[in-house]
Structure formats: C-alpha cells, structure tokens
C-alpha cells in the first residue's frame, strides 16, 4: 500500500506502525509518532494498523528556541 512518511510517498508492506518503524530502521530509536495528525503513543504502535493513504510523522529531539 501507499502511505506518506514525513511528507514523502512510500510503498510499504508493514501492517502496523510498529512494523513500519522496524522497516525504516527506527527500531529502538528515540522517536515519537503521529498518524493522520494524531499522536500515537509508543505503547500503541504495535496495535495501530496502517491503511492505504495514511500520513505518518516520525520525529526526534532537536535543537529549539
């Protein structure tokens, strides 16, 4: 299916958000996630299914003012 990850279209076979993070190389990384503009806590990633057209955001700590 086709989803969007951090603004970039992507083809994925991952059934869940947790599987997508593994597929992208984020396994164990310090990141937070949102799907379709809604926050998904780390504990719910494995139970969050992905559907065609979903918009996923993956963010990490950065410098800020």
């Amino acid at each position, binding site marked *: 299916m086709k989803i969007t990850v951090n603004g970039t279209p992507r083809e994925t076979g991952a059934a869940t958000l947790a599987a997508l993070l593994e597929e992208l190389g984020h396994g164990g990384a*310090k990141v937070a996630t949102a799907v379709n503009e809604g926050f998904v806590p780390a504990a719910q990633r494995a139970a969050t299914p992905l559907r065609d057209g979903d918009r996923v955001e993956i963010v*990490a*700590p950065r*410098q*800020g003012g």
Partner: protein
Amino acid sequence: MPVFYETEVTSRLMLGTAQYPSPAILAQAFRRSGAGVATVSLRREAGGERAGQAFWDMIRELGVHVLPNTAGCHSVREAVTTAQMARELFDTNWIKLEVIGNADTLQPDPFGLVEAARILTDEGFAVFPYCTEDLVLCERLIEAGCRVLMPWGAPIGTGLGLNNIYGLRSLRAHFPDLPLVIDAGLGLPSQAAQAMELGYDAVLLNTAVARAGDPAAMAEGFARALEAGRLGFEADPMEPRDMAAPSTPVFGKAVL
C-alpha cells in the same frame, strides 16, 4: 528563584539550544551562564539517522530542566499533537506552547493559543504560553489553566528588546504573584536587566546568545545582567523626577 508549576529553577536565564556554531559551544554557553532551563524541539527524523538520540544525550549532560516547544505550529491541532509527542520523548509535562498567527512577525495567534492551552492543561500539561503582553489574552490564558506567562519582548529573532514597556509593566502590576518570563526579542544583556527591573521573573532567549561572535561570553553577560537587574528591582529604586536635586548638602557650604 522562579517557581514554575511547583518546580524551582536555579537561574533566571532560560536558554534555547538552536543555532550555535557547535554542540561544544552550546554546552559552554550553558556552563558559563548557569542557565537552568533549556528549550528543545521535535523535528522529522529519517530511519537510521539517530540524530535525535545524540542531541538528547548532550542535553541530558547539561543537567538542566528541559522545556520542549511547539515552534512552527500554526494550528491548534498541530500544537497539541506536537506537545503530546514531546511529552513522550522528553519525559516531561512542561510545554512551551507556540501557536503562530503570522509568518512575518511570528506573533502568537491568541485565539488558537487559548484553545490549545485549555486542551493541554486538561491533559495534564504544564503550559508555558508564548504570548503577547495583551492583558485580556493573558487573563484568558490564566482562565485556561496557565500558571506562568511568557510575553514577547519583541518578535522572535529580532533583538529589538522590550518594545512595549508600558504593556509589560502593566502586566506585571496586574499579576504580581504569577511567574512572568520575557520570551523572545532580546538582543543585549541590558535589555534583560531592564526586564528584571520591571519585576519579571526570568527571560528566555536563544538567538542573542547563539548568534553572538562569542556565544559563551554573551550567555555569561546575560546571566550577570539578570543578577544586576534583579538586585536593582529588589532594592526598591528611587522615583525618577524631572527637576535636578543636589545630592551634596547645600547647608554648610562656604560663602566665597
């Protein structure tokens, strides 16, 4: 020292972590100034990049309180989701709430700010709203649950100092017991001293330090100015007057 949501901080200086020439200089700026709070943000990360972890390890070594922001958010939804992600990543319920209303001035959207503040307060966040000095907006933010206010001195990154002294003084007078922080717009230590002389509790700045030729020295300069200004405020300054008044006694002067 200021108390934010039952937590006393160790300094009146809150310092941003962006735009420094290097991580080492960032760390020096914190060490030399003794800043007690570091603002941080969230940005997109690619798989395998692990830049977030490296940055987070460096911030933790500073041993300061971390205040995540919602910088760049223009809608309530964006700001709320960003705050929720920040709480999980940084393991704190503190959030510097920015809801930007205009791209040129980066001034807060007061309507979105109040709405987002109410939602986040209900979710258990300790909201630090980046706001203007507008008294009615500030009243609404307090009604929404904010226990600290962070009015701007001037637009972010301008270094123009305190643009509305009357408004800021009036805000201090209206809320004598609420922690008030000047957030954004400062460029020079003297402006931070002025904020202290007005009775403000702290200042939050980033560009003025990070973009100085010697960021660590400038950070220390701000820290000293804050001390000087605060001492001046606590010492109950004299009232200014228009006419001159001799300081040396007139009585006893020889007639020559």
